[in-house]
């Protein structure tokens, strides 16, 4: 899109009432395939690029156009944004944001680091924050608001609005800084993207492993003022639900729907974190997100459905009121967080046109719902190995749990074996893509089972509160730990499936070129034909890939970008340990000596045709 066209759109948008303008402007930008303006590409979470310069006949000759080293160790999830001629790249803790000038050899225009003097804006030290991060030091990326703001949700839960041009702080608010911890600190952390709707930005929270009660909080984009907060569990007024109007399985949820499902006040440390990828439908004016596991992991101490953990929530983003809820895994016994992405697709389901929501849950079922009404349409296993439930009862919406795999049924200090999927789920947060050409969903998956032994824990705020011992292994009958699959969300069937030696933890990107990109833990960036799964391209990036693919165009050329970086020990670490083989992977001293080596950190690799 030319600059002239952009400014016409901008001025046209300004003429409309303000609340509408930001939305429509951002939505217009999402339709421009040259830019990548939101983590998922668009509100619907399709992760589909309309660019087709790179296609199935030429993707085999794809080359590295340029790389950028973030200089930060550990896992790099999420992906960069492209707004106009500027790319925004984020990192794992300390959550640095870079603005790169695509017109000038990716020169760093500005660099922002929220950690100053070892401390995050909320006052926590970086070390303390790292100690309460559940699952590596990840961050799932920044987002953009058309008033010229880049928003970062930092690991200490600070929401930071930056001037997109200069990187200067516009405002900072620390979402959950008061905390409930014994140490006067919050055990909540931030890893999920900040989600822009109209002139608001919303954030979830992480930390269910630490006995927090999580929530979604919505802020004003211009001032940072808090607008509303909706807890995942607790009294109706805390959760922003209307007992008579909010529905589940098409029926009103009734009074105290959450409180009734917890023993005593266990809901106060009930978990239900929110850190996945979210969806928004501007026509229905509805925000969709999923809540995570109930705390503690030991189910014996929290009999009941533990509502509304493990739930898809549909809310009015203006006031937070819930329209409908659907709990996928009542009384979770396996840590099957319901946080995974919400993909909004208008499609035929069982012969009827539907405004659908498709969700690949950690519990191994793929759900197709009517996103307007919350009606459950399809719930089928997307890995045949899934065994903890036989099926989902379509009348009640409840999974039919198999006693043999019920850790609560087996009891405390009993090792329940061969449960599929493992706690990390058939799929974790790594988002699937929707291929608009074939109508298939491109899904990165785990193929891992586990033994699970719950034990009693006493809660100390700010300390890990897991209460279960796990061991995991490949699903029976194979040695591979992952599959990359294509899913038919109408029929509830796998269209094709490519085995991968490791779990696929990178987000997928489908394109109008008839190809889908994904990455592997060995670091291979791959392209497959979307219709068949046939591998067309493979390139080894410097580290394992857990980031999400994105695409943009610059000066008429299509580019595809991916962050790699799992941190820890790369091949480089193996070499470092060489002179003391018995030290093996524990040679931390040698490792720190390598800190100046760029290959240690996360690397953005950008591909283009030669």
């Amino acid at each position, binding site marked *: 899109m030319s600059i002239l066209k952009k400014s016409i759109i901008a001025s046209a948008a300004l003429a409309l009432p303000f609340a509408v303008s930001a939305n429509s402007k951002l939505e217009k930008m999402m339709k421009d395939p040259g830019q990548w303006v939101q983590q998922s590409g668009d509100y619907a979470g399709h992760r589909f690029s309309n660019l087709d310069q790179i296609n199935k006949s030429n993707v085999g000759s794809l080359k590295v156009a340029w790389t950028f080293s973030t200089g930060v160790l550990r*896992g790099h999830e999420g992906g960069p944004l492209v707004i106009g001629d500027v790319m925004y790249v984020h990192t794992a803790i300390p959550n640095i944001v870079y603005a790169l000038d695509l017109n000038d050899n990716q020169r760093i225009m500005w660099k922002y680091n929220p950690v100053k003097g070892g401390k995050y804006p909320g006052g926590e030290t970086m070390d303390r924050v790292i100690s309460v991060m*559940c*699952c*590596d030091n990840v961050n799932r990326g920044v987002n953009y608001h058309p008033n010229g703001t880049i928003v970062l949700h930092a690991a200490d839960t600070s929401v930071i609005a930056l001037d997109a041009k200069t990187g200067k702080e516009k405002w900072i608010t620390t979402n959950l800084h008061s905390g409930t911890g014994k140490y006067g600190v919050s055990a909540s952390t931030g890893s999920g993207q900040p989600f822009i709707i109209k002139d608001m930005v919303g954030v979830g929270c992480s930390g269910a492993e630490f006995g927090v009660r999580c929530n979604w909080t919505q802020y004003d984009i211009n001032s940072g003022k808090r607008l509303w907060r909706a807890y995942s569990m607790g009294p109706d007024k805390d959760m922003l639900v209307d007992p008579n109007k909010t529905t589940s399985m098409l029926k009103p949820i009734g009074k105290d729907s959450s409180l009734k499902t917890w023993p005593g006040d266990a809901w106060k440390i009930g978990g239900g974190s929110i850190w996945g990828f979210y969806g928004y439908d501007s026509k229905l004016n509805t925000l969709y997100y999923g809540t995570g596991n109930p705390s503690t992991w030991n189910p014996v101490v929290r009999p009941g459905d533990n509502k509304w953990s493990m739930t898809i929530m549909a809310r009015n983003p203006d006031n937070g009121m819930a329209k409908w809820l659907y709990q996928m895994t009542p009384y979770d016994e396996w*840590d099957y967080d319901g946080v995974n992405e919400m993909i909004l697709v208008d499609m035929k389901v069982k012969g009827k046109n539907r405004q659908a929501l498709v969700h690949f849950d950690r519990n191994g079922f793929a759900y197709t719902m009517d996103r307007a009404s919350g009606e459950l349409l399809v719930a089928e296993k997307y890995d045949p190995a899934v065994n903890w439930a036989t099926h989902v009862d379509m009348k009640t919406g409840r999974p039919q749990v198999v006693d043999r795999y019920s850790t609560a049924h087996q009891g405390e200090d009993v090792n329940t074996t061969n449960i599929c999927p*493992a*706690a*990390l789920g058939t799929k*974790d947060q790594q988002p699937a893509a929707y291929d608009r050409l074939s109508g298939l969903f491109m899904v990165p998956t*785990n193929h*891992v089972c*586990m033994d699970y032994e719950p034990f009693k824990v006493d809660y100390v705020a700010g300390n890990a509160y897991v209460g279960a011992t*796990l*061991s*995991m*292994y*490949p699903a029976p009958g194979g*040695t591979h*730990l992952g599959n990359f699959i294509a899913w038919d969300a109408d029929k509830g069937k796998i269209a094709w499936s490519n085995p991968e*030696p*490791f*779990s696929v*933890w990178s987000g997928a990107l489908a394109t109008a070129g008839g190809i889908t990109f994904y990455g*592997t*833990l*060995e*670091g*291979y960036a791959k392209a497959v034909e979307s219709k068949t799964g046939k591998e067309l391209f493979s390139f*080894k990036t*410097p*580290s*394992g890939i857990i980031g999400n693919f994105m695409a943009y165009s610059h000066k008429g050329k299509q580019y595809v970008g991916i962050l790699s970086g*799992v*941190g*820890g*020990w*790369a*091949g*480089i*670490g*193996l*070499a*470092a*340990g*060489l*002179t003391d*083989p018995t030290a*093996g*992977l524990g040679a931390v001293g*040698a490792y720190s*000596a*390598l800190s*100046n*080596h760029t*290959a240690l950190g996360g690397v953005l690799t950008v591909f283009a045709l030669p």
Partner: protein
Amino acid sequence: MINKLLVSSSLILATLLFNKSHSNDFPTLARSEFVFACMSSNASNRDFMAKCSCAIDEIAKRMTFKEYAQAEAIARLWEGNSPREEAFKSVGLSKDRMQKLFRAQAASELECF
């Protein structure tokens, strides 16, 4: 005499098997990266350039690049302690690959240092 014959024929057999299963297929980039890291953690001089080059060549003789890349991925994950990393500490594939890597590393240590 018979013993010697047995030994030499099994050596030949071993050599044949060895050549068949190990294609010595490491890309130069992977070797360079290893040498660079090995020199960085030991000493950046000509002596260690030779030793480290020797080491990666010895490792490359003993495993395929695919196996090495998998071992590398597992090694990275072993450092973490989140649930998803836990998955990789007990799996058979991890044990096999890491054992093979450690053996290759030990052999390269003997050959080159």
